[in-house]
């Protein structure tokens, strides 16, 4: 098989790409780097992903034969362009330009409004294992505002754009850690449309396969 993810199966970005590959039916391998520190090695920076911060370099990186591409959402868009419809019938980005535009809009909502507060909380509490009651309080307010919007967006809809799409996929991995490793699932569950949406997307076969692979 030619598709390889470089990364760790606990990174929400890596999990999003895995979910995308499963949904499209594309076989793939995962290569674990030697360590998180190794992501800042000269070789990795030069040949895989050029950005890094104090903690580590960046994953996922996707290798498709000779082709290398980074950044989770860019990787997913590429995979959809290349493989959608080739292994199965699943449509993650509709062919109709207007529907595709709306999926892109919802991906932007995910990136701009949903993921930042959720990720901040997950990274602190779940990955860094720090207890920060002030952060929990601010996160709850922010996330509640966002979920109020989502509650309206999901009115009369099973998925953000009506049909399941890449926009829903990209919401899954960080939210999973809220449900699996924190006490804050309630913030989602108390909103009926949001709860149903989460139950629907987190119970997809493909996501269950990804969860089995989480190394945490």
């Amino acid at each position, binding site marked *: 098989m030619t598709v390889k993810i470089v990364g760790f199966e606990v990174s929400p970005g890596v999990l999003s790409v895995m979910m995308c590959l499963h949904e499209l039916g594309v076989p793939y391998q995962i290569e674990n780097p030697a360590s998180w520190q190794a992501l800042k090695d000269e070789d990795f920076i030069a040949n895989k992903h*050029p*950005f890094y911060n104090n903690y580590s370099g960046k994953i996922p990186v996707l290798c498709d034969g000779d*082709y290398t*591409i*980074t*950044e*989770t*959402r*860019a*990787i997913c*868009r*590429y995979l959809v*362009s*290349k493989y959608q419809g080739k292994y199965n019938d699943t449509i993650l980005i509709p062919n109709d*330009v*207007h529907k*595709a*535009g*709306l999926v*892109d*809009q919802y*991906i*932007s*909502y995910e*990136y*701009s*409004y949903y993921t930042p507060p959720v990720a901040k909380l997950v990274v602190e509490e779940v990955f860094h294992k720090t207890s920060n009651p002030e952060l929990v309080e601010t996160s709850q307010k922010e996330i509640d505002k966002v979920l109020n*919007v989502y509650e*309206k*967006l999901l009115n009369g809809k099973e998925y953000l754009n009506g049909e399941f799409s890449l926009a829903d996929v990209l919401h899954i991995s960080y939210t999973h850690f809220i449900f699996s490793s924190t006490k804050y699932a309630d913030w989602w569950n108390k909103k009926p449309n949001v709860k149903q949406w989460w139950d629907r997307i987190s119970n997809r076969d493909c996501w269950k396969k990804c969860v089995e692979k989480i190394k945490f």
Partner: protein
Amino acid sequence: KRNKMTIRLIGFGNSVCTIRVILCLKELGLSYKLTPHAGGYAALKDKDYLANEHPFGKVPVLYDDKFKITESRAICRYLAFKHQGKHNDTILIPNDIHEAGLTEQLISYGSSYYSPAIEKIVMQEIYEKDKGKTPDPVVINQGRKEIEEVLNVYDKILEGKEYLNGKFSLADLILCPITHYAHIAKHSDLWDKKPNVKKWWNRLKNRDAWKKTLEDAKNA
């Protein structure tokens, strides 16, 4: 050749994201009508606006005839996929899957690393100043360090290239407005220090579409 469709844009002439969409429209050779939202930025939180235009209270919002779409990068992609190559030769997202993927990667570098670093400074130097507050020197120093680190990477990316992915693309376009504001905020020295980055910005700001965009933004 006039396009018969009606593109209407809700936004403001001093909004980075609105300017981004105007630039995209100009690059694609599309005409449009800009409607500022009555009541200004404060009115974006009105119940009406949240219910009918943008649920998170943001600009811009684009109407292509009856089709409504929000979020500037999503709007730009939509415009590219629908209109590119129809009114002129400008291709914003390459047709080749692999080149398109690299363009998307660069767009993501812009959202993840380039824009956030600059936004810190622009918020302080322009938006806070507008509200009558003094820019925080600590935040500005930190912002400058971050920008420098990002521009180090961009200088390497641009080695031997005129634009981020070789040919001009959406990846370059998206970064024009925020870069322009960084220069207005008097931090152009950071771009001038890096030879490839300096040439790249010079190229971008001399494009016809950018000049026309600045005109439209001024008159908005």
